[in-house]
């Protein structure tokens, strides 16, 4: 068993602890942002577990969980928790409805594509994130030595493709960037914005640092995923683990009681 097969199990364990920690807070305080965070973190954990499983063996429903929860939805749900915390406006409820409906629609599209998965291309020798998509080879581009290629007809023209688990042009893949853009904006943008507000007001250093850690963790996995799609998959598992550690640490840091209290003379009206 290689280190890359072990790391996702550590990420899964950390995300499981993180999810329980956040859902416990929801149970006590009933604040909706904890629920959205908890759901998103559970999705992240499911995605990490699926990735760990798929580094050892194939299972189509584990792949379903990996793509839907790990690749598509989790960032958007965690980010929506941040939006719910930061913005107390009616339109956030409309966004919630859109997110739920969009997630169900993505699940429906994923179910539609399940019978068309090309399981013959699956290998445990590389991350699933490097083999899920079917990619058209551009003119003059050569396929990697270990890739399976095929010539197919796409929109009336013959193209050579590197075969992936999902067929070319799967509609579910079109939904993923929407969720990820929304997730990046709200999760990372929200954490950076919160850190900036506390920093500008010169208060609550634990929340400044906590939000910086959360933003850094989310950016780390976003960057590692992007690098994987560009062919540098070796950073993915360590990126995922560092993301889990940074985000959990950041959350604990931001939520902890203040280290000190500053006594300031304040003029108050005598009663």
């Amino acid at each position, binding site marked *: 068993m290689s280190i890359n097969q072990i790391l996702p199990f550590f990420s899964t364990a950390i995300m499981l602890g993180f999810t329980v920690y956040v859902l416990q807070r929801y149970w006590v305080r009933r604040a909706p942002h904890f629920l959205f965070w908890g759901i998103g973190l559970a999705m992240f954990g499911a995605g990490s577990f699926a990735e760990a499983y798929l580094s050892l063996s194939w299972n189509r429903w584990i792949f379903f969980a990996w793509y839907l929860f790990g690749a598509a939805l989790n960032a958007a749900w965690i980010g929506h928790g941040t939006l719910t915390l930061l913005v107390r406006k009616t339109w956030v409820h409309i966004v919630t409805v859109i997110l739920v409906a969009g997630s169900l629609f993505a699940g429906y599209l994923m179910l539609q594509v399940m019978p068309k998965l090309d399981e013959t291309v699956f290998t445990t020798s590389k991350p699933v994130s490097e083999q899920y998509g079917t990619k*058209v080879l551009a003119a003059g581009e050569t396929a990697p030595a270990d890739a399976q290629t095929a010539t197919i007809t796409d929109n009336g023209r013959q193209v050579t493709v590197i075969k992936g688990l999902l067929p070319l042009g799967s509609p579910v893949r079109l939904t993923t*960037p929407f969720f990820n*853009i929304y997730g990046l904006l709200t999760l990372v943008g929200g954490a950076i914005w919160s850190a900036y507000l506390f*920093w500008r007001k010169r*208060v609550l250093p634990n929340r*400044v*640092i906590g939000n*910086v850690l959360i933003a850094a963790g989310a950016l780390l996995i976003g960057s590692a995923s992007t690098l994987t799609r560009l062919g540098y998959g070796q950073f993915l598992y360590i990126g995922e683990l560092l993301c889990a550690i940074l985000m959990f640490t950041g959350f604990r840091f931001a939520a902890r009681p*203040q280290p000190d209290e*500053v006594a300031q003379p304040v003029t108050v009206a005598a009663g």
Partner: protein
Amino acid sequence: MPGGLQTNKKSHLPGNSLMFEKVIPALLILMGILTIALILFAAGVLLGIVHF
């Protein structure tokens, strides 16, 4: 008659701290730029400009 002390429960950022004066602002700017770059990348994928 004015008077009395009230405890301000908010802790404050330490003054003259390299971490809070230089490192945190630099990190926030850097992460903001990286976020925009990743969003543009994802938008490029969505619009079919970036292929993978």
